[in-house]
């Protein structure tokens, strides 16, 4: 049986000396912000990736401010799913929930699968803990946990026991209890412990006492699980049959940065990042600030406006200007992006979207900034918009952004979101030597007595020359006022203005000439076409593949390029009875497609700060399929 992209609890399996084989598992670690759940999840993920499973993760941390310990707003969670087959999402409901305190239990028990394993740290179920979690009755006593395989362990006591010989004080020891829990899970799922041992040694290299304590706690947890036989069996998940190659586990912001740097290297065009920190985009600034050894210049500006303006200044100078932010920052950059459009300079704007409007819910995900990307500027100011759909995909999208910006001399908006940025997945590393060519041409020195024409265009791309200050014979002036085509002089001539308005639009439209054909998953015609863009890709793929296996005439296709849209999109849409578009917004791309093609695209909208659940998508599409018939 090929795995289907959904989990079935921990029940289907082949027995072998107490070890059951599963094709996939979903684990959720939940605890207080201070309990180290992100670290724990991260270690499990790395180990599991190294063991060859396919894997997808979903960290879900609380609002920006650390909430008081033990309360619901302070709960931090990390979900990961690993499998022996190709998966697309971190899973909907977990098979295993580790709840480090009552608040974590309360926040997450609702999603645990029936008969799922629930690991509780009894040390934190004192009356005050329960009260902080707004429990009036201890949930372990009121039957509400019936139907789960509850495992109660006093992790704090066990950990302290394991660390009696450690020099750490009790607070320090207690910090190791997540490793104790990890040890238990490592036994339960037959994970190797070496990668974590190495990683911790590296992470706390300067604090050997802490390394030792963590490793001891992990070993103790592992031994405890093995010896005490709290579990009847342990499980294993065979490596996934992934395409041959070298892999690395990667998060979206990381991959995006690598794509940008790789393209910069390919095109021999040095990068400049102007940025101002904002959740969930700050990691792009952090990451690229670490690539100074690749010649990347990063500038933490005083605000988003200065950040984008500095990037435009850099592009004017012949570097490729990039600016990274999230929605509210894009709003502030709008005026300057208009300038870049007018100046016809390359520029890359990275919008790692978060839940809006306004400050909204900064740590939650959403894809509601598409129409802002399209129209969020004064006047007719068309801009290329592309989007990444998974962590690994972000590499290619970063690369593509550089290609388009430099080939067409245009600003490019790249849309990602918090889910992609922070989620991780195994990434099949590209053959660096086979990366697509990026050719960047700067205008050569001018001839004496020939006036340089800054708006003389490449007939194919309509790109104007990229003339670096410092080059002899190319002195010229540009700016935000309308300018005469070819000469670049200021012009208020009505016909010229119309021509320039049309030309700027045409330049963006021509980007579509470069695009590869759309390749749907499934047949090229049928009952329902599910279109998608951005992070819902995983949930849609999972849902559609399952429906296809059930024999439905449903296909799906994903758009990386949102402006311009691919030339073959319309024909594809018209080959299906119905087109449905799930989006984490109120139907933004759907409305663009409806306006452009007059096709009755059905919007499936969810705007609650959460990613789509593949089961919900599946159910929705099943209904649509029914209606179509």
């Amino acid at each position, binding site marked *: 049986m090929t795995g289907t992209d959904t989990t079935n609890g921990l029940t289907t399996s082949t027995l072998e000396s107490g070890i059951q084989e599963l094709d996939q598992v979903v684990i959720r670690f939940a605890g207080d912000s201070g309990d180290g759940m992100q670290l724990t999840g991260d270690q499990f993920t790395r180990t599991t990736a190294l063991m060859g499973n396919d894997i997808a993760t979903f960290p879900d941390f609380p609002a920006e401010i650390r909430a008081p310990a033990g309360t619901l707003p302070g709960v931090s969670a990390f979900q990961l799913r690993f499998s022996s087959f190709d998966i697309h999402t971190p899973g909907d409901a977990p098979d295993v929930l580790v709840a480090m305190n009552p608040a974590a239990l309360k926040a997450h028990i609702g999603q645990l699968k029936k008969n799922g394993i629930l690991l509780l740290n009894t040390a934190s179920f004192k009356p005050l803990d329960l009260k902080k979690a707004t429990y009036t009755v201890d949930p372990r006593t009121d039957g509400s946990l019936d139907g789960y395989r509850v495992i109660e362990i006093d992790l704090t006591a066990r950990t302290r026991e394991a660390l009696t010989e450690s020099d750490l004080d009790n607070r320090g020891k207690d910090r190791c209890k997540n490793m104790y829990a990890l040890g238990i899970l490592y036994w339960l799922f037959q994970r190797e412990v070496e990668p974590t041992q190495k990683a911790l040694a590296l992470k706390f290299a300067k604090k050997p006492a802490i390394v030792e304590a963590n490793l001891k706690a992990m070993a103790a947890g592992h031994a405890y699980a093995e010896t005490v036989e709290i579990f009847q069996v342990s499980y294993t998940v065979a490596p996934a049959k992934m395409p041959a190659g070298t892999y690395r586990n990667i998060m979206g912001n990381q991959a995006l940065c690598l794509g940008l740097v790789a393209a910069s290297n390919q095109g021999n065009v040095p990068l400049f990042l102007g940025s101002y920190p904002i959740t969930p985009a700050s990691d792009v600034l952090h990451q690229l600030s670490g690539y100074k050894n690749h010649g990347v210049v990063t500038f933490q500006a005083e605000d988003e406006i200065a950040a984008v*303006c500095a990037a*435009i200044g*850099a592009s004017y100078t012949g570097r490729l200007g990039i600016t990274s932010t999230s929605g509210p920052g894009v709003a502030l950059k709008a005026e300057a992006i208009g*300038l870049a459009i007018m100046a016809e300079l390359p520029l890359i704007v990275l919008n790692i979207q978060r839940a809006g409007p306004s400050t909204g819910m900064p740590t939650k995900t959403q894809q509601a900034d598409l129409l802002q990307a399209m129209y969020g500027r004064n006047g007719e100011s068309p801009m290329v918009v592309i989007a990444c759909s998974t962590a690994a995909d972000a590499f290619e999208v970063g690369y593509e952004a550089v290609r388009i910006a430099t080939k067409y001399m245009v600003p490019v908006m790249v849309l990602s979101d918090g889910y992609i940025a922070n989620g991780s997945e195994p990434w099949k*590393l590209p053959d660096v030597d086979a990366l697509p060519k990026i050719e960047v041409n700067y205008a050569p020195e001018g001839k004496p007595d020939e006036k340089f024409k800054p708006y003389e265009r490449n007939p194919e791309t309509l790109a104007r020359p990229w003339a670096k200050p410092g080059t002899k014979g190319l002195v010229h002036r540009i700016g935000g006022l309308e300018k005469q085509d070819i000469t670049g002089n200021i012009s208020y001539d009505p016909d010229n203005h119309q021509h320039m308005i049309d030309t700027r639009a045409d330049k963006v439209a021509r980007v579509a000439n470069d695009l590869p054909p759309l390749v749907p998953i499934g047949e090229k015609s049928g009952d329902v076409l599910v279109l998608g863009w951005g992070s819902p890709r995983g949930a849609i793929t999972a849902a559609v593949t399952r429906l296809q296996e059930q024999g439905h005439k449903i296909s799906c296709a994903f758009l990386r390029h949102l402006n311009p849209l691919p030339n073959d999109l319309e024909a594809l849409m018209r080959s299906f009875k119905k087109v449905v578009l799930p989006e984490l917004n109120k139907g933004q791309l759907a409305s663009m497609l409806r306006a452009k093609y007059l096709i009755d695209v059905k919007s499936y909208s969810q705007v609650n700060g959460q990613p789509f659940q593949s089961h919900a998508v599946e159910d929705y599409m099943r209904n649509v399929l029914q209606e179509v018939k």
Partner: protein
Amino acid sequence: MSSVEHPKLTKKDFKSDQDVRWCPGCGDYAILNSVQTAFADLGKKLHETVIISGIGCSSRFPYYMDTYGFHTIHGRAPALATGVKLSNPELDVWVVTGDGDAMSIGGNHFIHTMRRNVGLKILLFNNRIYGLTKGQFSPTSPQGKVTKSSPLGSVDYPFAPIALALGAGGTFVARAVDILGPHLQSMVKQADSHNGTSMIEIYQNCNIFNDGAFTGFTDKGARDERILYLEHQKPLLFGANKDKGIAFDAHFRPFIVEGDDLGKAYVWDETSDTPAPAMALATMDEEVFPVPIGVFRRQDKPNFEYAVKQQVETAVANNKQSIKDLIYAGEIWDVK
């Protein structure tokens, strides 16, 4: 390049082919003229010079210079210019801005440029009015100014741009006057030789919307008595016969000395360790005291673009890595 190929350019070489479109009589003409003269004297090259402006009458400046130029958006010239300078520190980057452009909408970029000491040369055309939008009061207009947007007189207190620059950590802060060409040219040259941010506030007459804003001290008749030329390591003297001076009391309050007391005139030190004396001058009441022009403060301090460049170069030297190394990093594994 041999020097034969590049004879020193003349003032005329710096003129672009565009018609100058300021109102006849505008102080901007005189400034343009002085800048062109100074640039020629300094032996600048057209292709290495970049002039970046915001929006305002003054910000049309780049169009009239046959160098690289970028007429950006309102208030953002220093930010954009910072990107230029960080990307190519070899370029000679000048920022032209107005009192509205730099002090109002662009105030934040202005102070951060000062703080970072980016090697930009900022020419702030202060006409104490919004010229381009046809005459509203600006953050440097005096209180009580009647304009289209303040029909009953503005109630705002004005900025002292020099004081603001000092408060923000400015390392070269000076003042000049549109019609005092040779002095202005000397300021431009000194700004040019400074290694960090240079800022020259240039009093500029807008003869359409704020005519005569500075005539009280710039008129031929008034000048001698009303302008105080700051000269490094010279006493602060003014008056036709340099018979008056400025001294400071123990609390650094300025007062005017004459006659026998003239020797008490403060000896100006533009390189002082503390910005306090410059601050004392910058906030002197224009009605009571002469108006200082010249260099208020000059402080040698490594510039921002140099530090950024050095960090990158060191990183490249210490940690050379191929793109393949970068991508195939961390925990990787093979699937066969």
